[in-house]
């Protein structure tokens, strides 16, 4: 069995903290996994409708948002290195950039959804039910649920990163006690991972 790392605080077990975070990530993977399962069944059953509906989405915004999240993953990963190099200023700067990028993602999403609403497309809307085929209804139902749940996780992630930032500033999270920041990073990468699969499934159907 692995030995607990030596720490001044006998109750602090960094490996346990990391393992716990990974286990939580598994639950999130299965949570979204259920939605991906639903998506894959309905896409299998309605290939043409999904293709048609997919063309309503704005590929450019989707691609920009993808790049934004990828960059934000890099910045938060870099912040963990900065913390270990005891470079507090750089750590904080990188976390602030991450939060900014997350905010831009959310703003893009807000506009994207706004456009849909303007076109009369939302779950249960008359236009959706009356004018679209069943496959298209399913596509948009899944689109709103999956990107909506994902956006919720972005918000939660932002809060977690803000808390981590705060504790780095205060000095309670530091090179010898990095777990909170590292776990915040893991959560953020998870959010990125989900989008890595969401993007092609909704925006790249041709």
């Amino acid at each position, binding site marked *: 069995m692995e030995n607990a790392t030596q720490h001044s605080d006998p109750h602090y077990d960094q490996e346990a903290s*990391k393992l716990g975070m990974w286990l939580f990530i598994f639950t999130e993977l299965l949570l979204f996994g259920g939605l991906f399962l639903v998506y894959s069944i309905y896409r299998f059953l309605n290939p043409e409708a999904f293709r048609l509906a997919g063309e309503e989405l704005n*590929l450019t915004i989707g691609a920009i948002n993808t790049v934004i999240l990828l960059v934000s993953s890099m910045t938060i990963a870099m912040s963990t290195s900065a913390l270990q190099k005891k470079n507090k200023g750089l750590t904080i700067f990188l976390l602030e950039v991450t939060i900014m990028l997350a905010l831009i993602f959310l703003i893009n999403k807000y506009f994207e959804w706004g456009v849909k609403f303007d076109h009369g497309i939302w779950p249960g809307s008359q236009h959706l039910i009356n004018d679209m085929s069943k496959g298209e209804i399913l596509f948009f139902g899944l689109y709103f649920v999956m990107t909506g749940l994902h956006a919720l996780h972005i918000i939660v992630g932002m809060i977690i990163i803000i808390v981590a930032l705060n504790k780095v500033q205060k000095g309670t999270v530091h090179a010898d006690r990095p777990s909170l920041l590292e776990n915040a990073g893991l959560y953020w990468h998870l959010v990125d991972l989900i989008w*890595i699969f969401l993007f092609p499934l909704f925006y790249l159907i041709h």
Partner: protein
Amino acid sequence: MEKEKHHIVPYKVYFYILIALITLTFMSIGITKINLGGYSVLGAMIFSTIKSVLVLTWFMHLKFDQPLIRFMVGFVALLFFAITFITFLDYYFR
């Protein structure tokens, strides 16, 4: 593992991974121009899988962590695929 504490990933490694991820993203957009028919989903998923392996391995530190966690991640992925596969045994053969 003590290894983790001593090994600090250099910033430029993270940067190179980002470049790879962005490149793969644009490649995945590019291949939609090619008509792959039923295999277009597979193509997109292959790109996503490669990207996620990069994120897991470097950004999420799996490369430098104890093998146990890598094993668990693999197990969870396999479980999800098995469940998806079995569900398709219903829909594909109806």
